[in-house]
């Protein structure tokens, strides 16, 4: 177990660099957009990864509410953090891409808006975690996570119907996408998934360690002669 971590780390590193090569060099240049389009290989995978992590967060939270086991809470905390990071990447690469391609930084296209709202929800989740007093944090956070997850489909529908005057700018899926591009995209996504997993893993271990330390400290506090009142 202890050894598995660094090994996996190396693998991820290799995969990432390969993906980088694929994305920047191997992948064919997009006709109309030119090289800017290559940002696509980071944009989309991070989006998908973020969504996946938020999903895990939801599951973990539900598990915590039922079983009340701290491990689930740790998982929820970690996935939320990393998810928000990847979501931020999407929100940054998006506009960077949008600027040259559409000539504007931001539009209220449904996908963009959805990402933004998701980001808001899970940032508020993190804020809550930091602000609530320790003993109840897991419970309250889990509850909020459920609220957030339940909210997502509603957000989706509302935005889907919202301001339809703005045509969705994102180029069609599948068919129009050059298979080589798709290939690179998938490699990148795989790399991102490994990377995300790696980060989550280490954060998770850290989380657990902190809690163990607290436990032991508390036990010592029990043994030591009563301190000042």
């Amino acid at each position, binding site marked *: 177990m202890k050894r598995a971590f660094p090994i996996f780390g190396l693998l991820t590193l290799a995969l990432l660099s390969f993906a980088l090569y694929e994305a920047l060099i191997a992948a064919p240049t997009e006709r109309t957009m030119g090289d800017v389009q290559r940002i696509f290989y980071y944009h989309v995978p991070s989006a998908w990864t973020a969504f996946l992590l938020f999903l895990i967060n939801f599951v973990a939270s539900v598990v915590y509410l039922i079983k009340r086991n701290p491990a689930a809470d740790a998982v929820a905390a970690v996935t939320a953090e990393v998810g928000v990071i990847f979501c931020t990447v999407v929100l940054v690469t998006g506009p960077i891409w949008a600027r040259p391609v559409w000539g504007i930084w931001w539009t209220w296209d449904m996908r963009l808006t959805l990402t933004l709202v998701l980001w808001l929800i899970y940032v508020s989740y993190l804020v809550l975690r930091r602000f609530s007093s320790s003993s109840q944090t897991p419970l309250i956070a889990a509850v909020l996570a459920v*609220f957030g997850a339940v909210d997502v489909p509603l957000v989706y529908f509302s935005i889907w119907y919202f301001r339809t005057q703005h045509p969705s700018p994102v180029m069609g899926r599948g068919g129009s996408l050059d298979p080589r591009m798709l290939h690179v995209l998938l490699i990148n996504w795989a790399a991102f998934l490994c990377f995300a997993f790696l980060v989550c893993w280490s954060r998770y271990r850290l989380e657990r360690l902190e809690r163990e330390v607290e436990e032991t400290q508390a036990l010592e506090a029990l043994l030591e002669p009563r301190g000042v009142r």
Partner: protein
Amino acid sequence: MSTPTITQATLTKDLRLEWRSKDAINSMLFFALLVVVIFSFSFNPTAEESRQIAGGLIWVAFLFAAVVALNQTWARELRNQVLDAYRISPAPANALFLAKAIGNFVFVSVLEALMTPLFIVFYTLRALGPAWQLIPIAALGTWALVVNGTFFAAMSIRTRSREIMLPLLLFPISIPALLAMVEATSAILTGEASARFWIVLLAVYDLVFTTVSLLLFESILHAE
């Protein structure tokens, strides 16, 4: 000890107390006037323009007024830790939640009732669509704000710097509801589109979150 009776008891208790010190209502009215006035100064619109923005205007005002009210929801229960008295009693947690939510619903509705005429006057609004639909929209929309607001207010009891916490939790979750309210209202005011979809969405939203709240409130209440 059935939920309805407790709910009713708690609700009447709260309403009576609020009525004695017209504190909340006053601050909200004060606030409402402030909002309407500042908007009426910000520009005086032609009937056409005002129709375009009135929906957003009204609902943003309502949203923030609601936050002011919701922040006071649990204040009374926290003084002298009366909440503990409820927690050790066999009364069902949901009764308390419902009572508080309904109470807030009443407040915000009163506020809305106070503000709407002001808006209509200031902006010479005239609905081109079916005006009667505005009533279900207002009701559903208000409940959407209030049910989550009450729940999150209860959650933020257990956090540092409560007052700022509530909007942080409430706003992101309420976005779809807010969208629905605004869009539905403007749809009816301008009469350009039908508000049916939005009304349905609001109804679903209310249904979902009322259920979730009722399922989870007990654990929040008894969180130490």
